[in-house]
């Protein structure tokens, strides 16, 4: 699920940047430090939409770095249990397949793939094929899946997906 949140961060700016462009540089640094990261609490920070406030700088006595308190708005992506997502299949194995929804990697095990779909070990391109041969899940296919569980690491989020429900599976 996506959120638009206001977040805060302490920015440490190298003293060499203390000059006319200080705030531009501070913003740039904020972008590069924050975007694309994953915080365990909020999820993936997709993009910063606006920087609302930059406090007065405070020089650290020990290092000479300047600390700014920054408040910014960002789009956050956090997967939740039960959520339905679209993802792209990245790898198909006999245990199930891996898919990615943006930065999130999801594993869909054979238990959570409809029982009429079977792993085809023979074909050159490993895939899951339904009994009637109509449906096929192979690499780079787009699937709609439901999140069955997530684990939030300090820097990563893993998820287990399921396509064993109605209206889930390959999106054609």
């Amino acid at each position, binding site marked *: 699920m996506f959120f638009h949140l206001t977040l805060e961060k302490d920015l440490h700016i190298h003293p060499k940047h203390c000059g006319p462009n200080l705030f531009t540089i501070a913003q740039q640094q904020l972008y590069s430090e924050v975007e694309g990261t994953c915080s365990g609490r909020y999820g993936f920070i997709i993009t910063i939409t606006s920087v609302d406030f930059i406090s007065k700088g405070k020089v650290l006595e020990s290092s000479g770095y300047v600390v700014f308190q920054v408040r910014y708005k960002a789009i956050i992506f956090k997967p939740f249990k039960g959520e339905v997502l679209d993802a792209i299949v990245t790898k198909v194995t006999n245990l199930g397949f891996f898919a990615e929804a943006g930065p999130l990697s999801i594993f869909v095990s054979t*238990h959570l793939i409809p029982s009429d779909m079977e792993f085809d070990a023979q074909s050159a391109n490993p895939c899951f094929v339904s009994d009637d041969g109509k449906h096929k899940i192979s690499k780079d296919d787009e699937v709609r899946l439901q999140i*069955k569980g997530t684990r939030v690491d300090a820097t990563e989020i893993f998820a287990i997906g399921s396509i064993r429900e109605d209206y889930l599976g390959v999106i054609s």
Partner: protein
Amino acid sequence: MNITFPFKYEGYLEHWNYKIGDSVDSGDTIAVFTLNNSHKQQVNFISQWDGIITDLLIKNNDNSIISINQEIMKINICTHDVQFSGLCASCGRDLTKKRVIRNIVDNSSVNNSNQHSILHGHSSLTVSKKEAQRLEDINAERLRLNRKLSLVLDLDHTVIHAVTEQGLNAVDRWNHVDREAKGIKKIVVNGMMNYCIKIRPHIERFLQRVNDLFELHIYTMGTRNYATEIAKLLDPTQILFKERILSRDDSIGMNFKTLQRLFPCDDSMVVIVDDRSDVWKKSRNLLQIAPYIYFSDVIDSLPHERTATFQSRGGQNRQASQQTGSNSNGRLLPDDRLNDIKQLHLNSGNQDLLSKLFTAESLAKMEINQDLIDKFHSLDVITREQFTVFNQGDFVRIIESFYSLMQFINNMSWSDVQLVKSFCNSEVTLENMELDTSSNQILKSLKTLKPTSTQVQWFLDLLKFLKIEILGTLLNNRDDHVNNVDHDEDEGDEEEEDNSPEEDDHHLLTILSKLEKIHETFYKEFSEHKKPHVQNILDQLKKEILEGCFLVLSGVYPLGTPISHQPIRHLAEEFGAIVENDITSRTTHVVAARKGTTKVNSAIDKGINVVSSQWIVESTRVWQRADESFFQLPDEPTQQVNNDSKSKSPPTTTETTNSTTTTNASTNTGVDQMLSNISQEALQKALDDADKELEEFLEDENDDLSKDDSMNVDNLENNSDNDDGDDINSYLNSIKNNNHNSSNNNNNNHSSSNNKNLKRKRDDFDDNSSNISSSSGGSNSSIDDESDGSQSVYDSPTSNSSSGKTSNSDSDVDNDLQELNDLL
């Protein structure tokens, strides 16, 4: 699963906390009961399971008494067979969070050690033993249906040889080689690392044929990107390997490979082809192939070996520099050896020399070889023997290495070189080779060099260290040797080697035929409804190689060596030979380290083949019985063999000139003659210069302690008294005889102590290799022999002058000697 009433007393239900279809985690309170005991205790019914409640057998308002063991509910338990980064793949539970609770509840099904990672690419995905078994059964069934087996293939040194482009460009020769014409391919890994790859000859045929019989897997210690690139190179269509590539990134450990990673339950249908047995911890599924080395002269380690190597080197250096204080004596652990040597370097104040020696190039070499050393020490001796299968070209290599070394240490007597060579020879057990030209060359160059004992000592230490390097170089040269020996040895020797040896590598075809045989046997047995196992078939295959050979070992190991310490014996037995203690009527081969033993003599009388232990090693490498005629023992000058009773002295004596002479004797008696003459002269020189050397050696240590000659004599006596071995005494005697004419008693002292020092070091070597000890049996006699026989040589002007020179520095040297003795 049906759950029964878990309490000791009967009771009745208060209420359920869950309803049918709810999912419960372990630790949750499913229900509350009131027990029917004296104080009507209320108890919580806590779930020990993760799962979904499928049925509740007691109604919520039912106050009837529940008896013990009565079924109360049904639950569909998730056993978390498949896990993805700590998440159960089927129920989505976060299993890492619950570890604490789990441990209390003791839910053994979620024990991490039971989890196996079986996918090639994703080590984050693990499965339980049960699930692995199920998957493997499916896989095995599929393989059987296709009449295939699994083949785990190593990359580096097995099917390819890779070096970085940088390393290749650093070697001048390769800049003049048309790389494309030579079939050297280039790959780029991660956009920045360029590698030059030479694919082993016959690989296409090998892969194609093998692909019909086996399902191919790659298991390499390279990184994933590297492995993928190589796989593309080997198999552009990506049909052979598909995604079955296991790289370091997905591996459990950096230093070993295990079949458990891919086949946790059943390895009965898996064959491994790898050039190293140590990483597989002697897996019986391993079909070992001779390593493929094409860029023999490129000083470069593999990408994945480099970091580790470098670290270990740094560590060793640090250690060495920390330990500079004491010179530990007695036996050293193998791992300590290197340190000890380095220590010695530092102690000796030979840093100048050291720095010369360890120039950038040799350091780079060491980078590899440090790794090799580690490997070497961690190897069992059997694998170690692999290093010692050499041919003539390789020997030239050795000589070359020595030669360049000698240029560094340009005070070297021939006798000492002989020592060195004998040491090396006995270690390496060279085959019966034509050495005349090269050794002549060496001889010539050495005649102009000055001998010193301490330097030789130092050199020996160095050699002990470098031996491994040499072995490493040799290893590198096994398949592609001596294309660019650049110093002026006889060209004739090398031209033979120049015949594009890199194309002569037929090991893959040998292995292919073995694989075919394994496959055939497996499915033959399978069709007979037996339960074939690849390990058994492989064992059988190995046994066929030396089957019917009844071997007697002679002089290979010292008497009394426990059988468990006789790797050659084990190797022979593993490959089907029967090793006996004495020659019987059925004996087919006598494996000996040298001629002149009773067994060898009686074998010759009976017309039994006498071969060196290399014969066994080589046979196992090429997977067929090697031609015995190439592994004849080198001849030994008869006068030395038949010398006297002293030659029967314990085999653990110092190894001296003799063994070298024996190795070379067959090739050139002229050289031999020269050797013995020069050695005498050189020995004297060595003793003299040793004093000087000693001086330098000890300069840094102390400067006082002036002692008179009598002290030294005392020292000498102490030395000889302390040494209880006959060998050293005879050795000393021989030197006494030797020096008698010069009437320089001090010389005696020095020589003896120096020699003692030498001997001590050599004993260390003896520990290192049993070959040495066994081959050095006759050495004392040879010394005696030479010293008696060559007095005339000794009186030659050169020796006199050198002895005169020494006497000048005597007093200083005496101090140093005292020091040395104290040290020792």
